[in-house]
């Protein structure tokens, strides 16, 4: 405990504010469950989806992508120097998904029936795919996070069991998922065979063994993330008649995936910078700069794809007319892509942690704008009056995020998340 300097001064006002916002959000959520969704929101029959889907679900999930991106960089693609960032990223992702699920319970009309997804399978539905992926991936994140708890309480036996069992858990989840979504024995057997071969290879020594985290567990996290990050885009392929042509593209799933990788990286930079400031610990500036360079490559790829997509589909003309949609598009592109790219590609600005932080923050904001554009701004509800979120909708989302930040800070204080703390906790063989 002694390694983490007390930062009561910073904690005082900020956390009080977060607690108040959290309490307000919870109170409004209780009100919503007693009176119905209409009592707190402006959603109507023409706009069944609004701020909650755009911000909590679409943006929230994309911003939690840092967990799988960093895990992939470190454990699969050999970027071992980024190891100190893995645990904070996994924790953020885990909390992010729990928060998103909480928010989804508020948005769903009949959340107590959510178990129906496990019982009734409609594999044609992108929503079914997203639901299952999120359930599986949240479970994978929990399993990935467990070593932190085991280390904290010195449970070395549990840690050993975890190393042996978690790859099997990962394989079972992936195979069940493959069967549910394909309804094809052939696909299921092929996918199962590849995964089992990997595990046998690792156990038999034909493949290298990761001493920290079982590789199959990491792979499961990456595969589930790839699938649902893209499927969130697939959701909107159902509505060519409602979503503006500015955003409606058959490539929407690919765009959603790439922008999630982008936002995930940016979020890791933002969150590391803030937590370094908050806990008064050393900033991994060198590592973050590396991420920043990677981020700029992903952004260039995304920008090129967006541009290409608009040219190929020939909707450039719509961007030059002064409609709310075109304006929202330009805000999204300038704030979320052009400005931060200018910062990231200027060496003097990148050299400072400050420039990197602001660039990453802009990417995060741009991502949120993008998702709200797809879910709300770009949607036409026919003859129904245009939808604007009511303050209570926003307050519930803000409350949920506030509770999440408080939980993150509390966990970072009491568990070995950062490298300094892990060293103090006696190293530990986990990842």
């Amino acid at each position, binding site marked *: 405990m002694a390694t983490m300097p007390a930062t009561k001064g910073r904690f005082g006002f900020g956390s009080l504010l977060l607690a108040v916002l959290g309490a307000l959000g919870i109170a409004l959520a209780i009100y919503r469950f007693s009176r119905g969704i209409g009592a707190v929101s402006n959603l109507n029959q*023409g706009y069944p989806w609004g701020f909650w889907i755009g911000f909590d679900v679409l943006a929230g999930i994309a911003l939690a992508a840092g967990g799988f991106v960093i895990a992939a960089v470190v454990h699969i693609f050999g970027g071992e120097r980024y190891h100190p960032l893995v645990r904070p990223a996994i924790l953020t992702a885990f909390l992010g998904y729990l928060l998103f699920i909480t928010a989804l319970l508020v948005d769903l009309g009949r959340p107590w029936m959510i178990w*129906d997804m496990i019982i009734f399978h*409609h594999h044609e539905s992108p929503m079914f795919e997203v639901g299952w992926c999120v359930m599986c991936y949240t479970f994978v994140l929990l399993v990935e996070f467990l070593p932190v708890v085991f280390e904290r309480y010195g449970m070395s036996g549990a840690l050993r069991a975890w190393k042996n069992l978690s790859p099997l858990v990962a394989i079972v989840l992936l195979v069940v998922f493959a069967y549910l979504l394909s309804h094809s024995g052939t696909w299921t057997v092929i996918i199962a065979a590849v995964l089992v071969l990997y595990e046998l290879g690792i156990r038999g020594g034909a493949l290298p063994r990761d001493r920290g985290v079982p590789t199959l567990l990491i792979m499961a996290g990456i595969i589930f993330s*790839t*699938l649902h990050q893209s499927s969130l885009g697939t959701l909107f*392929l159902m509505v060519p008649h409602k979503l503006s042509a500015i955003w409606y593209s058959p490539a929407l799933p690919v765009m959603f995936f790439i922008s999630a990788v982008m936002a995930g990286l940016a979020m890791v930079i933002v969150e590391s910078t803030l937590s370094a400031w908050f806990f008064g610990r050393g900033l991994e500036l060198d590592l973050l700069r590396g991420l920043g360079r990677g981020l700029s490559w992903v952004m260039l790829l995304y920008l090129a794809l967006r541009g290409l997509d608009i040219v190929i589909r020939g909707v450039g003309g719509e961007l030059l007319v002064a409609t709310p949609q075109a304006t929202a598009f330009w805000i999204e592109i300038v704030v979320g892509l052009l400005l931060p790219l200018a910062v990231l590609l200027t060496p003097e600005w990148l050299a400072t942690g400050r420039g990197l932080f602001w660039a990453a923050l802009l990417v995060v904001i741009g991502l949120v704008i993008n998702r709200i554009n797809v879910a709300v701004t770009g949607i036409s509800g026919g003859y129904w009056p245009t939808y604007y979120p009511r303050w209570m909708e926003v307050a519930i989302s803000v409350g949920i995020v506030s509770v999440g930040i408080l939980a993150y800070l509390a966990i970072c204080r009491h568990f070995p998340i950062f490298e300094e703390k892990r060293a103090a906790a006696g190293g530990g*063989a986990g990842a």
Partner: protein
Amino acid sequence: MKGLLIDSVRCTGCRGCQVACKQWNRRQAEKTEFFSGPGYQNPADLSKETWCLVTYNEVKINGRFEWVFGKKQCMHCQIPGCASACPVGALEKLPSGPVIYHKGKCIGCRYCMLACPFLVPRFEFDSPNPYITKCTMCQDRQELGEIPACAKACPTQAIVFGERDALVAEARQRIASAPSVYTHHIYGLEEAGGTCVLHISRVPFEDLGYITDIPKRPLYAGTAPAMKAIPAVMLGAALILGASYKLRNRTRAGEPAGGHE
């Protein structure tokens, strides 16, 4: 596959269908205001209590305004977007035609409402225990060998129940027999890949407030390629991850990978 043919030319605006629908489906009366919708239309729109609505439209024909009636209700698509969207299969297309709602399965995600190009499903936003509501083509009456309540009530055969193929032929025949009266478009023949409810009218359907910029293919065609790619994406991802894991860690053969502690 059964369906309904709705002929706006024969409709007198009596709203017998609207009342019959409420009676059979036990929908409450709504507190409404006269002239809240266009002209004598009442109520203004479909709702959880009103699954069938005669719309009143003043349309200029040959220089003078005339009433032209439309009908709002579920179109019972042949491949319905709502059913493709539903994650739990609460909305189901029956082979006999109706798109029905299993209220016990519904989780309230409202993706069906987003998917529906005709803006038909209604959600009970004012209820803590909300459901989706919409027309069922009186599937329960059909099971008893009866025709839907609206068609039964219609005095002018403006609503006809029957096999969809036969209704398409009937619609074509009605248009062909009075080509100067009807607009030459069967609404629902191609909209959203074809629907079981078909409309014909004397004026273009835009003038009746119908949504007309609807894709000609089923909405499922938009999501199907992405959904079908999922097993291939899984396999591809597994292979790429496996290969790069092997390659990236080859340089340190014999040594455990990733464990720098």
